[in-house]
C-alpha cells in the first residue's frame, strides 16, 4: 500500500519534472531563435538601448500593440501612407528613413519580439570591462613611480646615516685628542679641502678630464650630424589613435584612410568623416573605452544621430616633414613605383604612436634611387623609353631609377 503511493508520487513528479524541462528548453530555444533572427535581420539598424540607424527597441513590445508591430515590420510604408499617427511620427523623427520590409513569418516576428522583451527587462550593462584595462594601466604606472620613490627614500636615509656617522667619528676624534693633550687642528673650509684633494690627485683628474673630453666630442659630432634630421620623432597626438590597432590588428588598408597616397602629392590626413564610417557604430575602443572616440564626436559635434554646427578641426601633429626646398609626390611612388608604404614609413602597423622611421635625408633618397629597379613591365609609358635604355645599357641591364634621371637635381629641387 505504502509502496504504491510512493511509486505513484515518484511517477507523477517525474512527469512534472519532464514537463518543466521541456518548457525550459523550449523557452530558451524560442529566445535563441529570436536573437538569431534579430542578428540576421534587425541588427544592422537597431539595438536595444542605443540609436543605431533606427530607434532603440527597448520596451517596444509594451509601447505598441502586437498587431501594429507585425504590420510595421512587414511593411512600414503602407502604415505611413495610410496615415497611422504613430507610424508617421516615427518616420519623421528618423529623417524619413524607410525601414526595409522584412520577409518574416508571424512566428518569427513573435520570436524576435519575445527576445526584445527579455532583453528590455535586463538592466543596461555598465561599461566596466572596457574601463578595467585603463584603470589597471594607471595602477601599473603608479606602481612604477612608487619603486622610484622607494629608491630615492632609501638613498636619502643612507646619506643621513653617513652624515650622522661622520659627525660621531669627528666628535670621538676630538674627544680622543682632547684627552691625550694633542692640539686640535685648524678647521679647513670645504672649498679649501676640495682644492687640497685636487692637488693631491692630479693624475686621476687628468685622466677623468681626457675621457670626458673624448666622449663629449664624439657625442657632439653626432649631435651636429643630426641637425635637421628627425628620425625617431614620435610626438604624442591629440587623439590616442593607434595604427597598431587599426592597420595591424584590424587590417584596414593604409589607403582606406590615406586615400590620397595613390592619387596625389599628399597621402592625406583623413578628415573625421572617414573615422565616422566605422565609429558611428564602434563607440568603444579596447584600451581607452569611449574616451578617445568621444574626441572625434566632439570635433564633429555629433550627438549620436546628427552632426551639429559647432565643428572643430582635430589638430594632429605632423610627423614627417620634408624641407620646402624638396618636392616629393606620393602618387608617383605608390601608384607608378609600386613602393610599399612600409619601405619608407617602417612597420607603422606595429606602432601605437607613429614615429619617423627613415631619416628622409637627401642621401637616403638618392641611395634608394640608385638601388630600386623601375617597374617597366605592363606600363605603356615606359615602352619607348625602355627601348632606348636597352640600347644604351644592354638588354638585360637593371634599369634603376637613377638611369631614368632619378639623380637629376631638378627632379626634386625646382
Amino acid at each position, binding site marked *: 500500500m505504502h509502496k504504491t503511493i510512493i511509486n505513484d508520487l515518484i511517477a507523477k513528479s517525474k512527469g512534472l519534472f519532464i514537463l518543466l524541462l521541456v518548457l525550459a528548453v523550449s523557452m530558451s530555444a524560442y529566445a535563441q531563435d529570436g536573437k538569431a533572427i534579430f*542578428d540576421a535581420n534587425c*541588427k*544592422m*539598424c537597431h539595438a536595444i538601448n542605443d540609436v*543605431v*540607424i533606427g530607434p532603440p527597441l527597448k520596451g517596444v513590445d509594451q509601447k505598441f500593440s502586437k498587431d501594429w508591430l507585425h504590420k510595421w515590420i512587414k511593411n512600414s510604408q503602407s502604415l505611413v501612407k495610410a496615415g497611422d499617427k504613430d507610424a508617421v511620427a516615427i518616420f519623421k523623427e528618423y529623417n*524619413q*528613413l*524607410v525601414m*526595409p520590409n522584412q*520577409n518574416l513569418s508571424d512566428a518569427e516576428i513573435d520570436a524576435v519580439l519575445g527576445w526584445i522583451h527579455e532583453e528590455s527587462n535586463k538592466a543596461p550593462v555598465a561599461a566596466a570591462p572596457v574601463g578595467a584595462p585603463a584603470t589597471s594601466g594607471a595602477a601599473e604606472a603608479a606602481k612604477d613611480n612608487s619603486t622610484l620613490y622607494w629608491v630615492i627614500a632609501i638613498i636619502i636615509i643612507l646619506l643621513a646615516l653617513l652624515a650622522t656617522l661622520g659627525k660621531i667619528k669627528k666628535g670621538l676624534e676630538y674627544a680622543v685628542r682632547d684627552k691625550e693633550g694633542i692640539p686640535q687642528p685648524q678647521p679647513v673650509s670645504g672649498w679649501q679641502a676640495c682644492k687640497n684633494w685636487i692637488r693631491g690627485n692630479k693624475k686621476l683628474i687628468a685622466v677623468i*678630464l681626457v675621457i*670626458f*673630453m673624448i*666622449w*663629449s*666630442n664624439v*657625442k*657632439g*659630432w*653626432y*649631435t*651636429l650630424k*643630426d*641637425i*635637421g634630421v*628627425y628620425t*625617431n*620623432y*614620435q*610626438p*604624442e597626438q591629440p587623439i590616442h589613435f593607434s595604427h597598431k590597432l587599426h592597420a595591424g590588428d*584590424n*587590417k*584596414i*588598408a593604409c*589607403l*582606406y584612410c590615406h*586615400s590620397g597616397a595613390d*592619387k596625389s602629392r*599628399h597621402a592625406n*590626413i583623413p*578628415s573625421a*568623416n*572617414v573615422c*565616422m*564610417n566605422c565609429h*558611428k*557604430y*564602434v563607440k568603444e575602443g579596447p584600451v581607452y573605452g569611449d574616451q578617445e572616440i568621444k574626441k572625434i564626436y566632439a570635433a564633429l559635434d555629433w550627438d549620436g544621430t546628427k552632426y551639429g554646427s559647432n565643428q*572643430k*578641426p582635430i*589638430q*594632429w601633429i*605632423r610627423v614627417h*616633414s620634408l*624641407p*620646402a*626646398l624638396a618636392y616629393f609626390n606620393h602618387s608617383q611612388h605608390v601608384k607608378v613605383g609600386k613602393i610599399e608604404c612600409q619601405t619608407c614609413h617602417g612597420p607603422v602597423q606595429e606602432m601605437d604612436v607613429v*614615429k619617423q622611421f627613415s631619416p628622409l635625408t637627401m642621401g637616403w633618397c638618392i641611395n634608394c634611387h640608385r638601388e630600386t629597379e623601375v617597374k617597366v613591365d605592363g606600363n605603356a609609358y615606359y615602352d619607348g623609353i625602355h627601348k632606348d635604355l636597352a640600347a644604351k645599357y644592354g638588354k638585360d641591364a637593371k634599369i634603376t631609377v637613377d638611369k631614368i634621371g632619378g639623380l637629376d637635381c631638378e627632379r626634386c629641387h625646382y
Partner: protein
Amino acid sequence: MKRIYNISFLTGAGLMLLSACGDKQSPGLEYMPDMYRTPAIVAYSPSTVYKDSVSALPPVTGTVARGQYVDFNYPNTNEGYEAAGAELKNPFTPTPELLAYGKEEFMTYCAHCHGEHGDGNGWLKIKGDKFPVPSYFDETHKDLPEGKMFFSITYGKNLMGSHASQVSPEDRWKIILYIKNLQKEHAASETTTASN
C-alpha cells in the same frame, strides 16, 4: 697644448648642451630653418587667414574641375535614391583590366566590412561580433540597380558612411563593375549547385 685642451673641452661641453634635447616630443634642431620652411601655407598647416585656422578648404560650391564627373546630381533623399536607381547607368563596360582594378579598390575600401567575396563577412569585428553588413547576394541586394549602388557609396546608406571623399566617381563605377561581376559569379555557382 693647453689652448687645444681648453678649446676642445669647451666645444665638447657646448655640444653636449645641444645634444641634451634628445626628446621624442620634439623634432630636434634645425640649422637656418628659413631654407627649410616656406612662408607659403603648407598642406594641412593651420593658418590665421582662414576661419577656424583650417587651410584645407573644400572647393567653392558649384565649381567643377576639368574632367570632373558631373553626371550625378541627385539629392540625398529616398526619392533621389529611387531616381538614381532608375536612371543612372555605369559608363564603363567590364574588361579584365577594369575588373582587376575594381577588385583592387574593392579590397581597399569595401572588403573589411563587406567581405572579400561580398558575402557580408568582413574581417572587422566588434567585441568578437561581425559588423552587421548585408550580403550582396540576399533578396534585397542581388538585383540592386547600379545607380542605387552608386548612390549608396556616394551618400552612404544606413550604417555605412559616405565614401565620396575617399573614392573618386570613376573608381566607384569600377568597384560597382566588380561587385556586379561577383553577383553574376555567385548566381552562376548557385544554379550549378542547384542543378547538381
